[in-house]
């Protein structure tokens, strides 16, 4: 066997660079596919529960599926399809039907945190991912069992 020269080293380095690029490209592509930066929304605490709006800017006419988690536990799934003319007026959506209201019940008295996520399907339905809409919503349950926003 002939002794190798530096050209083999160059080939090995070139191959490593190509593989790094491949892995990096796949990682970025997968990140964008699974967690596309198209979802926008907001949520707040009302007397009955959590209400807000959700829009998918990649499909502005589609209704976004959402999931509510409180203190890290799944509470409910819904579709943001209720009337929110203020969202349309503010230019966030193409029509007004992007609102949601999810009632909260049977929570212990004290402070809690709600998170509303947009449910995204990718890979022809094989993958599902959740994207946080807005910020986590701190709230508390008062003595009457009603939710009260942290700002109230």
């Amino acid at each position: 066997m002939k002794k190798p020269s530096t050209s083999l080293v160059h080939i090995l380095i070139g191959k490593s660079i190509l593989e790094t690029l491949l892995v990096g490209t796949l990682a970025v592509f997968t990140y964008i596919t699974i967690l596309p930066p198209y979802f926008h929304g907001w949520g707040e605490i009302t007397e009955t529960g959590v209400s807000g709006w959700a829009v998918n800017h990649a499909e502005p006419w589609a209704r976004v599926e959402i999931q509510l988690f409180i203190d890290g536990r799944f509470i409910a799934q819904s579709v943001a399809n209720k009337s929110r003319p203020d969202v349309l007026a503010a230019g966030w959506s193409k029509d007004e039907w992007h609102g949601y209201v999810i009632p909260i019940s049977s929570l212990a008295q004290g402070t809690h945190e709600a998170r509303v996520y947009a449910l995204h399907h990718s890979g022809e339905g094989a993958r599902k991912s959740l994207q946080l809409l807005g910020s986590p919503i701190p709230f508390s349950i008062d003595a009457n069992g009603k939710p009260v926003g942290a700002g109230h």
Partner: protein
Amino acid sequence: MVARQTDMENVTADAFSRGLAMWEIASVVTSCLIAEWVVLSFAGRSKLITAIPIGLALGLMFYSHRHRRESLREIGFRTDNFFAACRLLLLPTAVALLVIIVTGWLLNHTLLTGGFRSRFLWLPLWALLQQYALNGFINRRAQHALGKGIKSVILVALVFGLLHLPNPLLAIVTLIGGIVWAAAYQRQPNLFALSLSHAAVSLALAMTISPSLLNSLRVGFKYFG
């Protein structure tokens, strides 16, 4: 003085060559791991993307053979020692087949659990490709770096086992198979005989051991899917 300097240069060149051989092994193993773990988890079962790391590994192997001036005969694509290699592999292959068949019988109380599938017809070719990469390339580079014998044989077997993780049973079987095939290759380098032995064992595993036990021979990220 000049002779001493030449000796030093030779020692350095040898160390460089051995280090490079280990790097070549690491590079081919990395490509396989990328295909098994990264591509499958990120890009699904896209054959086109899987072909990229596999193509890069094959390209490196072909270039390396050419660069080191290795002939097809040296690599093991030859017929003159076919029967000698078969004789060497006959007993371990027969023992492996017997163990697999008896294990399958004891576990399932039947001989054929997996059933024959048309893709099994590709087994000899698939086995030849694997044996080429494992022994025609990795074993040769391992021998170059560590010398002929137990160290290089163990390295080849460990690589073969590693590439079959996280399937625990398959990793153990391939570790043992890797030892046998690497040792046989070092005595009689014939890839056709090795691929026949490899295909026979794979076919026996696929047809007699319950697919649930071997997870249908899945490896890498596919193991979880």
